[in-house]
């Protein structure tokens, strides 16, 4: 076999059979399950009289609907309560591991997979959730699927796939101080567009990517889907092995040694080629802020909101105008003049311990602006516990932030955490679509540092010259 990319290596290791036309039966190692996209899949199994092929390959957790206030009160919305009890019952019936709402290990599905050591390099990982791309940070081929395919994986541990194309996104140089993986991925999406990665698996390479911690790589890979990509990958290195080691579900002893050898071999060979290449320089990436209604509508913190009058292309002009109308923004105003009502620090993009540490640094000893309502929603019970041990909860509370229980929360506002129409929010989540955080709500995507500083100032600030 000639030179191969990391993607090709993982793919080839998982081919169960391949038809002459390239249709491939691909083996799936891990399956994460949550309450919103699974009930119809379990129902399908029942109707067909099927059972999971490998129940032990799956792990289920409720995250989208769970309340982030006192869990002892239960769930007030009967529909949400039913969806969660349905998941619990399905897992009991089919023998699937389940972390319930009161379990300290409960959290956002893409936070707990890596945290538990369920996510390992070289795996194929799926979940009925588009942000499954997060797990690519470990050099695992991880992608989102629909509910029919959730059922397919439960029943067969396989998926029928065609080999996607590949794209290398190389970020060389060094990142300016105060810039984060979130800024890098937003800049990438701004560059290639929200459809730029369609049909492709992205591998992120270059010195800037290498310098990221595992949590930073998760933030990066998480938003691969916002560029339209099927999945994002970072090849495993010593950081990956160190992160994985000793977690509850990672291999132990000699098996760990054997596994880590295999993991460190998982890299793109010299001379292997990608279908597409995109290059960015780290030096050129300042903090990013989205101004519009998709993640590609993004600019630098010291930039301005676009003016449709300056846009020649008619379709783009109309789309820009429409986004500005929805967002309630004047054309051409500086990003730092945008005034905020809410700040949300959380989501599978930015709710891990490093995110909370960075945000706390900007908040320490300060007060949230009087006109802003701010909240922190840790990604899991264990992240929350760790933050509390470090005293981060006290920093946030003292500044006027609410400190909540873990879950998806206002990333998609399926529970009680919702923007009211017209409210404007700086959010560390991944989607600024119309109504995403509540009907009529206006979302600006930023890094944890940018969100924390904005909470204090009441508007966006350039954190590079803000103290």
């Amino acid at each position, binding site marked *: 076999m000639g030179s191969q990319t990391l993607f090709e290596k993982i793919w080839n290791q998982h081919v169960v059979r391949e038809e002459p036309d390239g249709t491939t*039966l691909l*083996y799936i*190692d891990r399956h994460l399950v949550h309450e*919103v996209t699974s009930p*119809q899949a379990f129902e399908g199994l029942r109707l067909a009289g099927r059972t999971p092929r490998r129940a032990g390959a799956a792990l289920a957790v409720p995250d989208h609907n769970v309340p982030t206030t006192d869990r002892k009160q239960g769930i007030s919305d009967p529909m949400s309560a039913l969806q969660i009890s349905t998941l619990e019952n399905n897992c009991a019936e089919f023998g699937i591991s389940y972390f319930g709402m009161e379990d300290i290990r409960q959290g956002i599905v893409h936070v707990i997979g890596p945290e*538990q050591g369920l996510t390992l390099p070289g795996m194929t990982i799926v979940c009925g959730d588009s942000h499954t791309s997060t797990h690519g940070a470990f050099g695992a081929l991880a992608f989102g699927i629909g509910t029919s395919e959730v059922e397919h994986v439960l029943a067969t541990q396989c998926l029928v796939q065609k080999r996607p194309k590949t794209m290398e996104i190389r970020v060389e140089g060094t990142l300016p101080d105060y810039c984060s993986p979130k800024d890098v991925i937003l800049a990438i999406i701004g560059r290639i567009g929200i459809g730029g990665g369609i049909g492709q698996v992205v591998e992120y390479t270059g010195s800037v990517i290498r310098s990221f911690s595992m949590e930073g790589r998760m933030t990066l890979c998480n938003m691969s889907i916002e560029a339209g990509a099927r999945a994002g990958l970072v090849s495993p290195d010593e950081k990956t092995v160190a992160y994985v080691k000793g977690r509850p579900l990672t291999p132990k002893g000699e098996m760990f040694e054997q596994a880590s050898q295999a993991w460190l071999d998982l890299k793109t060979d010299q001379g292997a080629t990608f279908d597409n290449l995109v290059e960015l320089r780290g030096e050129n990436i300042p903090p990013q802020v989205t101004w519009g209604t998709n993640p590609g509508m993004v600019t630098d913190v010291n930039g301005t909101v676009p003016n449709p009058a300056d846009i020649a292309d008619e379709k783009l002009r109309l789309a820009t105008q429409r986004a500005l109308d929805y967002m309630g923004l004047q054309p051409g105003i500086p990003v730092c003049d945008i005034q905020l009502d809410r700040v949300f620090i959380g989501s599978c993009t930015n709710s891990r311990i490093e995110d909370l540490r960075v945000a706390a640094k900007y908040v320490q000893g300060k007060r949230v602006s009087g006109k802003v309502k701010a909240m922190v929603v840790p990604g899991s019970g264990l992240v929350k516990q760790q933050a509390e041990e470090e005293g981060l909860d006290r920093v946030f509370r003292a500044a006027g932030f609410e400190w909540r229980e873990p879950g998806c929360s206002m990333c998609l506002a399926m529970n009680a955490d919702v923007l009211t129409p017209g409210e404007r929010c700086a959010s560390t989540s991944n989607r600024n679509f119309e109504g995403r955080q509540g009907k*009529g709500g206006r979302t600006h995507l930023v890094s944890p540092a940018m969100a924390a500083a904005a909470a204090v100032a009441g508007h966006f600030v350039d954190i590079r010259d803000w103290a």
Partner: protein
Amino acid sequence: MQAFTTVSGIVAPLDRADVDTDQIIPKQYLKTIARTGLKEGLFADWRQQSDGTPNPDFFSNQSRYQEASILLTRDNFGCGSSREHAPWALLDYGIRSILAPSFADIFYNNCFQNGILPVVLTAQEIQTIFDRVLSKETYQITVDLPEQVVLLPEGERYAFTVDSFRKDCMVKGLDGIGLTLKHESAISDYETRRSQEAPWLFQNSTT
């Protein structure tokens, strides 16, 4: 799954690029544990104006598109969330085929699981159909999957490509899981081999 061979019907225009699945069906409709009855949620936030009255500009509120079975739209349709509720809602409304210059991957795939045919045409072909739909009431076209062609009443034939395996499943209305289970012995052989090569992949998720 409902088989798909040929669908002839009224075309509904949705002249926007990058329509995400949060718009196709907003989150408040995702709390269901069923896959039917979702048309209530289809484009729920776009169908209404902010005061709750129907948006007269939206296709579903216009009598000429009431019987539409084909949706015409722009690039990157179905981006964002993987929710299969999006194709379920479209199907529940009566949409059997969607024409666009490009689709988001997960949505595209989800359509095939539900007997909805997503058809990629060139931007120019899509524009031509938009022009015709807007200028003629009850404009109807035919989407022919076996022949892989979109037929316009004026005589144009727009060929499209589709994966042969997917096409076969759609035309025959096959159960994908049943097909995979025919390869049970290949799956078992794979598992036996891999669990020796890389045993850590086969540890159970129970702690």
